């Protein structure tokens, strides 16, 4: 016997060994299960924060004041609109005002946007899903589906915004689907905030053949003290802020992977401490150290694989039933993707293999004689 085993035989032997001591095997799997489940949960949190959608229309350029993080401080008026219109000319399909405020409702931060309802679809990419668009003169507003998911509000409900009771008349699908926004007609917002003619953004919708960078440069020339940005860039910093929370989850993920590696190494190490003579007998029978190491690694992979399966079975339904929530006006949806599962399995099995190999190295270097006498 040259001591080499086919993977199938190695698998059969490792399974037989684990089956011979079902209680210890079950315990080895059970102690690793919470660590595996923790890994999947942390990975889904980090993933949900990293995959926040692109916000804003790609073909929109916005002009605003520098204090972009406190939009209530921004005050543009008709003269800004006229300047932008005159500058961009035919390179824009439209130049329109947009009111944007961050508001606090139900202990959540939501965005309140207001624009002429005629621009909602062509400029802001909104689609009506349910109800009717709000009336300019009535105390009405619309909500995006993200708001509905997060708050449970329905068409017909009444909410108090800036001290005014507003009826929700429409449910909208927004292009920036991860942003929780309330929408209202521009005229209604001017009344609500008691600032007629004031808005926070000039939105330039580019023509299909326009050169975006050329238009931006031209607008920067006529608005030297203002910010001129792609609409998506204006929210990028805020999204980045929310995403940075994922760093914390990623730190914990590393701890989880180390936990799995050490847990597996520990299990293998204890097995070797308890069963040194069994290992020696295998060596006497002609098994090469590498073959024994392969057997131990396979054993470790099987217990970790079982822990992963149980952890996934526990974690997947838990994650699937988590409701979406709003954080700083962005919708966070925790999901367990196939990629996350595959990555988790690969990392965990890799760390288990490494742990088993490291733990068995010293024992397999020893001569057979002392190992046979070991207890």
């Amino acid at each position, binding site marked *: 016997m040259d001591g080499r085993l086919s993977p199938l035989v190695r698998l059969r032997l490792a399974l037989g060994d684990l089956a011979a001591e079902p209680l210890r095997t079950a315990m080895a799997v059970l*102690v690793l299960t919470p660590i595996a489940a923790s890994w999947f949960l942390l990975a889904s*949190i980090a993933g949900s924060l990293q995959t926040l959608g692109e916000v804003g229309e790609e073909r929109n350029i916005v002009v605003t004041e520098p204090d972009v993080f*406190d939009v*209530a401080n921004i005050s543009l008026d008709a003269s800004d609109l006229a300047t932008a219109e005159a500058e961009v000319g035919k390179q824009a399909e439209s130049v329109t005002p947009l009111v944007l405020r961050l508001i606090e409702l139900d202990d959540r931060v939501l965005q309140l946007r207001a624009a002429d309802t005629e621009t909602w679809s062509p400029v802001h990419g909104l689609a009506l899903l349910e109800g009717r668009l709000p009336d300019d003169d009535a105390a009405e507003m619309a909500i995006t589906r993200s708001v509905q998911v997060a708050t449970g509000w329905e068409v017909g409900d009444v909410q108090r915004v800036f001290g005014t009771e507003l009826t929700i008349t429409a449910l909208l699908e927004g292009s920036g689907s991860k942003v929780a926004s309330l929408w209202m007609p521009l005229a209604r917002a001017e009344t609500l905030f008691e600032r007629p003619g004031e808005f926070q953004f000039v939105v330039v919708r580019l023509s299909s053949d326009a050169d975006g960078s050329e238009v931006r440069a031209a607008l920067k020339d006529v608005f030297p003290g203002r910010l001129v940005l792609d609409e998506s860039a204006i929210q990028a910093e805020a999204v980045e802020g929310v995403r940075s*929370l994922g760093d*914390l989850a990623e*730190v914990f993920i590393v701890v989880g992977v180390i936990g799995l590696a050490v847990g597996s190494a*520990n299990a293998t*190490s204890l097995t070797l401490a308890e069963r040194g003579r069994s290992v020696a007998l295998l060596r006497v029978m002609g098994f090469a150290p590498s073959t024994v190491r392969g057997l131990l690694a396979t054993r470790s992979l099987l217990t970790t694989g079982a822990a992963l399966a149980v952890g996934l079975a526990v974690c997947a339904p838990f994650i699937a039933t988590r409701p979406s929530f709003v954080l700083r006006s962005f919708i966070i949806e925790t999901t367990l993707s196939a990629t996350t599962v595959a990555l988790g399995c690969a990392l965990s099995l890799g760390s288990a293999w490494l742990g088993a190999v490291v733990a068995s190295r010293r024992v397999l270097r020893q001569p057979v004689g002392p190992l046979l006498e070991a207890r």
Partner: protein
Amino acid sequence: MNAVAMLALRDIVRRRRMMAALGAMLVLTVSTVIILDGYVHSIEVRFRSAQPRLVVQQDSTVGEFAGSRLPSSVATTLDEMGVTEAIPEVHAVAGTSGADAVLIAGVDPERYLDLDPFRIVDGRGLRPGEDHRTTILGSFLADRFGASAGDTVSLRGRDFEVVGVFELGTYLDDAAVVPIADAQALLGWGDDVSLYVIPVDGPLVTGDVLPGGLVVARRGDIALVDEWQPLLTLLSASVRLLAIGVVAVLTVALWRLAWLHRVDLGLLRLMGFGRRTVVGFLAVQAVVLVGVSAGVGAASAVLLSPHLARTTLAVSTAPVIDLEVLVRSAWYAAGVFAVALAVSSIAVMRRGVGALVRRDD
């Protein structure tokens, strides 16, 4: 008993690799648990400093942070309603990007020390009748700017002289505090303000709605904890699972180690040593492993926490690891020690001496 302790320590040295691996895993877990606890605690400490005062601000805003703007005529309205001592404040965020966003707080230099216990750590505080464009910086903001008393910083494109650096322990540690008139001029607000601070024993109570879309709220609570709760719940659940897993690995390891020692421990019993000696042997090992690991883990968390600070939209978030958090983690460590000791003791104590010394391998 000293001899038993020595035996236990020697055994640890003999199995140093395994003990080191178990210890490393415990250190990482303790650090993780403390850091997460520190994050949750920081929300309570920095964003929910309960105060016996109320604020009048625009409805649907967090006026103590940004977003609220009221005409100064509100002071007259409040006076007519019987509210005495309505103190105006300005709160806004200036900046064009996440990197240069700054929280600006405009306060009344004569009364700001009555509202918050500012602790000046460098320079001096604001003085009544202060020349324009002076500021005191919160310690976090001073660190970000690398500024100290005597330096000049740029706020919204204007130079301000830093006359002091303060620590308050709240979100205002990220703020540049300036005289309210300077803040109004800086923001171009005229005589508008963000809010009025009013006493709790006046005619208004939390939740009252006033004309002009104003609302009365509790001062010092800008956490929006409900918004953060789902994320914190998920993070807490995953860290707890991790901790349970690590404690389970530790427990099984100690149990199996105790079982490996059953012959030695049985011999001790045969030589006349009592059960307490056996428990002492196992306790020394558990104390060393759990105690040292918990200590190193706590020290790591304390050392790491300043490096985990993130500034997002003008506000820094970092774990606050104070005595309260450390005491809580000490209780957790005591629990882990009790479990570790109980399991390993049960492994060898439930059998008689005869069963312990019988080799069955």
